[in-house]
């Protein structure tokens, strides 16, 4: 392979910049395979290991310090095919969590010390048992987060959904990469910005994001390209000002999240000739303070089929947790689960670069 990865660049026709893309799976693209992604990441890291970077800063490999958040991938089905998606989610994906696996998650929640359930996908709302599962989690007193792509609220699935979410005090973390249609649609597809604005206005109307309502609305920005996110607090100020002035939209907090070189974003990096440089930026921007605050220390990630991972990124790279049992229905030792060693790889530089990145935004 050449240094810039040109050998991996395919002869697939290039879709227009903002047109809806097929998933890598649908294209039979080489990087639909987790094995191929892991091999490519190793090569692009240029022999720099994440563990070694930690040691150079006097740190050991990360280890879990408890079980706080159970992040559950309810399925890979999505109404969008965003260019940066590390799940390779899309309308053609059929992997969806069964109610039986959801019951196993509820049993784990009952027996362990978790206080937060973080629902993700795909579009988690497309799982037919989504509302039932939210009700069950809330009945147990869990804090419930829905990672919502906003446009799903304008589909038939979204009918009555904002009201349901508000009734159950579900916290919303919604994707809006930019306050302009130009950058948003390039990343997420034609017309996504306009529909996201309509969805946000609907959410505001029932109280989400409004001060004093108790209904939390967080927006997430991922860079629309091969660069790191800017300073979270400054971007939040810009986002709040612009969305208020242009659309009378309010929200509580902005999270900046670094794009992970996994799946469709990795494919885009290779196709656009940005892969080597981006990996170099991630490695060179290693921040030990961000490494201290990585989310995997208190999180456990459940795949659509019930397999357990240290985080959503390890899930997509098919790197399961390293304990004797790695399926949610067969957990027998919670102590070893809550103190397990975290599985790492070159992609971990994505969470430790610059201001750090996690499902809760910047970490340093």
């Amino acid at each position: 392979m050449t240094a810039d990865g040109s050998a991996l660049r395919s002869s697939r026709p290039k879709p227009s910049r903002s047109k809806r893309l097929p998933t890598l799976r649908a294209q039979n693209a080489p990087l639909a395979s987790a094995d191929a992604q892991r091999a490519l990441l190793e090569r692009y890291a240029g022999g720099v290991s994440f563990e070694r970077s930690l040691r150079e800063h006097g740190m050991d490999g990360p280890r879990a310090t408890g079980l706080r958040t159970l992040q559950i991938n309810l399925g890979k089905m999505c109404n969008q095919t965003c260019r940066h998606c590390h799940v390779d989610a899309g309308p053609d994906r059929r992997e969806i969590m069964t109610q039986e696996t959801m019951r196993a998650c509820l049993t784990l929640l009952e027996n362990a010390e978790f206080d937060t359930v973080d629902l993700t996908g795909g579009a988690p709302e497309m799982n037919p048992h989504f509302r039932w599962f939210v009700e069950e989690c809330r009945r147990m007193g869990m804090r419930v987060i829905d990672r919502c792509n906003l446009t799903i609220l304008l589909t038939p699935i979204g009918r009555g959904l904002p009201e349901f979410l508000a009734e159950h005090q579900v916290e919303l973390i919604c994707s809006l990469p930019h306050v302009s249609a130009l950058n948003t649609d390039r990343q997420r597809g034609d017309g996504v910005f306009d529909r996201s604005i309509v969805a946000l206005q609907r959410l505001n109307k029932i109280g989400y994001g409004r001060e004093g309502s108790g209904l939390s609305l967080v927006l997430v920005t991922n860079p629309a390209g091969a660069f790191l996110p800017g300073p979270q607090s400054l971007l939040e100020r810009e986002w709040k000002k612009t969305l208020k002035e242009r659309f009378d939209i309010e929200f509580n907090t902005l999270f900046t999240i670094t794009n992970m070189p996994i799946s469709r974003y990795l494919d885009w990096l290779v196709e656009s000739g940005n892969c080597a440089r981006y990996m170099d930026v991630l490695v060179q921007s290693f921040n030990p303070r961000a490494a201290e605050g990585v989310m995997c220390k208190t999180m456990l990630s459940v795949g659509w089929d019930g397999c357990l991972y240290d985080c959503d990124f390890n899930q997509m790279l098919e790197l399961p947790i390293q304990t004797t049992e790695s399926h949610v229905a067969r957990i027998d030792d919670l102590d070893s689960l809550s103190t397990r060693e975290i599985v790492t790889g070159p992609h971990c530089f994505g969470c430790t670069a610059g201001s750090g990145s996690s499902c809760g935004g910047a970490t340093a």
Partner: protein
Amino acid sequence: MSNQYYCSDDLAKFGEVAENRTELGEKFFAWYSAVFEDGALSTREKALIALAVAHAIQCPYCIEAYSKSALENGSDLDQMTEAVHVSAAIRGGASLVHGVQMRDHVQKISM
């Protein structure tokens, strides 16, 4: 060493200019980073100004650095293009306004 006057890899070596006169280099880089801190102007506005100036002085290193910085700080291509037009308008306008001097000279020496 590259056999070209401009090499994109050199941008990452900017810090090396502090060598040999470290105290001067440190003062420059401390001031430089203070200039770009959030203040009465936001970091996003400062990155756009830097991008416009980069085009005015036609510095390829600065154009690369502040294209990325402008994106990171939340600008989009529409805004960045307008910033470049501002730069071009000032450069073009600066030439054109000297036409007044030309007219003065012509009037002075013409019948």
